[in-house]
């Protein structure tokens, strides 16, 4: 069943891709093939392979239970928050929170998570910023 839904989504994706390929505004001066042809070929491959998947599905995978599913969504949201807050809070603070949250959700105790979060953050800061000299996000406190 999963594959049938997946195949159907794939076909829709291919149609959407083809439609936006057709909407590409062609420049007045173009080459012999133009910017649309190759995307249209890709859309065709995408549609055919999706149709195959839908018509000849594999056995369904074991999907996680609802609460596990919520867990994954929550982790994704925490990562999005991390990305957004990185330039605001600065690298060290944001990373302590980000790492501690994931460690906690993967089954460590709260205190342990905090310690690991601090350790991860400082460790990465030393390797990436101090040793390799990469510019990491600078927060209000300068790190």
């Amino acid at each position, binding site marked *: 069943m999963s*594959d049938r839904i*997946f195949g159907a989504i*794939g076909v829709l994706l291919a149609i959407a891709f083809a439609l936006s*390929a057709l909407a*590409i505004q*062609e*420049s007045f*001066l*173009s*080459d*012999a*093939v*133009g*910017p649309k042809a*190759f*995307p249209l070929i*890709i*859309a065709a*491959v*995408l549609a*055919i*392979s*999706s149709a*195959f*998947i839908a018509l*000849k599905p*594999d*056995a369904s*995978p074991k999907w996680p239970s609802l609460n*596990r599913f919520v*867990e*994954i969504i929550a*982790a*994704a949201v925490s*990562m*999005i928050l*991390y*990305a*957004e807050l*990185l330039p605001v809070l600065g690298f060290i603070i944001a*990373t302590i929170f*980000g*790492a*501690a949250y*994931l460690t906690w*959700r*993967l*089954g*460590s105790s709260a205190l342990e998570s905090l310690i*690991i*979060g601090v350790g991860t*953050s400082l*460790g*990465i800061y030393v390797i*990436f910023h101090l040793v*390799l*000299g*990469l510019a*990491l*996000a600078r927060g209000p406190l300068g790190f």
Partner: protein
Amino acid sequence: MDTLNSLADGFAIAITWQNIGLALLGCLLGTIMGALPGLGPSNGVAILIPLAFTLGLGATPSLILLTSVYYGAMYGGRISSILLNIPGDEPAMMTCLDGYPMAQKGMAGQALSISGIASFVGSFFATWGLIFLAPQLVKIALLFGPAEYFALFALAFATLGGVSSTNQAKSAFAAALGLGLAMIGVDTQTGVPRFTFGEVHLYDGIDFLVAIVGLFALSEVFIFLEHRHGNADASAKKVVIGRLTPPWSMIKRCTPTMLRTSFLGFLAGVLPGAGASLGSFISYSMEKKLVDKEGTFGTGDPRGVAAPEAGNNAAAGGALVPMLALGVPGSGTTAVLLAVLLSLNITPGPLLFSQNPDVVWGLIAALFIANFMLLALNIPMVGIFTRVLMVPPRILMPVVAMVSFVGIYGISGSTFDLLVMVGFGIGGWVLRKLDVPLVPIILGTLLGNAMESNLRRAITIDNGNWGTLIDSPLAIGLWSIAIIGFILPLIVGKVVKRGMRAGRDTAKDDENSLVD
């Protein structure tokens, strides 16, 4: 023996205490950067350019430092592929396929050692190839016009079917998805934006590093989260490290593989626009085609680890041929090295070997030094690397996630890239649940633009005639290999395979590996 004399001069230039120290520093930093997801050879070299300038290094010492980083990163990429199933950089993608299953079988140490040896063999032969064959090889590069490049890329996609999945429709879907993602951004031929939805961040296209790190590293984190109440923690702790050095018989069995793939990888590297990723990919798929009679590739076959590692390191050496002899970068990393040469007032090109022999031979000597140093560093350190497996996933996975974020943010400084990466992480998790292989997606994003540009160039040159694609003996040859060697067997063997697949599906344990 003019060449050997020049080489001796090169060693005389390269062997000073300062240069050896720089090579050691470069090898260490390069290995670290290669192993960290998100930092690959090209970024590694780019990051260290300011260091070379700040230290006030001359041309030869700068090149020694930076090529050591380059080779170090090529070695380092395999470490995280084997231990974590997360490629440290794009050429190490193929090493996951057999390296991670080997680690799960308790052979992590042996996988690291054999891949280290394979990396050495690949680089070693590639460096000799660079010395003796550079002028002749340039002629090979000149045989490839746009139509031939297009055929070469098509061949790469044709071999996918054999590599990554039992369900060919899903391989094809993944490849098309990757190619589609590559189309995002400003069209390189006419300058019109495509699939950008007015978002200026997308004008540049999606960086394949963002895609790799999201698809492989973050999706791995999600999978661990999903299984927390299951037995992920417990089973991971049971991983045995086993012996660290491979038995002699394993090395012996891998030797023909290493030699063949060194040659193949080197050729792929010599072609500008193909590069190390294609080198490791083609090496793996060709070797599987050639020697995998029992179907052990993908389940932890040491030859499946040796092949891509010898291939990608040989390609790294090969990519220096067009860079030095034509001034055309064959890969992202050589593009950065080219920029370094230019800012040191050295213009690579046909006359480099005669005008700046000290630079060329010093560089080649540095390659040998770095290569031996890396072998000497890597084999004893296998024991330390494998300790990573002792860290429980509940600690390791958050570190992997954070390193991934930092690797991407540190290079691009863009929150937008991080959001795209999270999107790839979720997408990667869903695709892995559905048993869609991830390798073709990366291959598509890596090669998509070059494939399209060459198609359009070929057809424009021949005034809109699509027949030009099969107009030269070389193009016909490449297409024939693709069709007779890879496409036909799929169709013919389908009946046989279908029976096998039905049996395998039920027994399959789901997402423990990239391939089933």
